[in-house]
């Protein structure tokens, strides 16, 4: 596709429910990144993928958060037993390769509200 695509664009969920956020990177991009942006804060790194493997998961806030990527394309970020503090914009990004120098392209984000 032309850009990084994320779905849903908006999600309201009840506390305790599980949610899945989907990211479609730009075709041919091997590196994929997930970031979180809470209201009034900067972007927090969550995880990145090189192909289907995730060399760096250091930003995942707790074991309720997990992500996978299949076929070097689509990635899913899953949040189990959502809490109110999970409310944020979840941004996905991709780049052609994982090493620095490769421009990172961001999607428009998935707005998650936990009530």
């Amino acid at each position: 596709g032309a850009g990084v695509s994320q779905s849903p664009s908006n999600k309201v969920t009840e506390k305790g429910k599980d949610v899945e956020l989907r990211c479609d990177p730009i075709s041919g991009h091997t590196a994929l990144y997930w970031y979180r942006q809470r209201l009034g804060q900067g972007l927090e790194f969550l995880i990145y993928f090189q192909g289907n493997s995730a060399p760096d998961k250091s930003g995942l806030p707790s074991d309720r958060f997990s992500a996978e990527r299949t076929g070097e394309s689509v990635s899913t970020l899953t949040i189990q037993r959502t809490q109110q503090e999970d409310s944020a914009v979840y941004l996905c990004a991709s780049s052609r390769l994982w090493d620095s120098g490769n421009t990172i392209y961001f999607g428009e984000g998935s707005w998650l509200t936990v009530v």
Partner: protein
Amino acid sequence: AQSVSQHNHHVILSEAASLELGCNYSYGGTVNLFWYVQYPGQHLQLLLKYFSGDPLVKGIKGFEAEFIKSKFSFNLRKPSVQWSDTAEYFCAVNAGLGGATNKLIFGTGTLLAVQP
């Protein structure tokens, strides 16, 4: 751990005023530095980046930034802002392996409002 500080959280300017947004990072090794911009209703996009060479880098739309290693700073500047520059600006540094990877650490952002 690496961190990025943006001291100006909210800046309001009139058109044609000059702009300087501060960015400081904490890391003693090799870094690559970036400024991203997010216009209202749009996704984040790269404004400019520094990897090596001339510490004064020029980006799109008349923006430039200067890397001052001794001050750990990478301030963004524009001589004359326009209403269309209203946006949120994020400074970022890439982390790990001496800057070899694309993992970015972002500042908290600066919201710029330009009044016509």
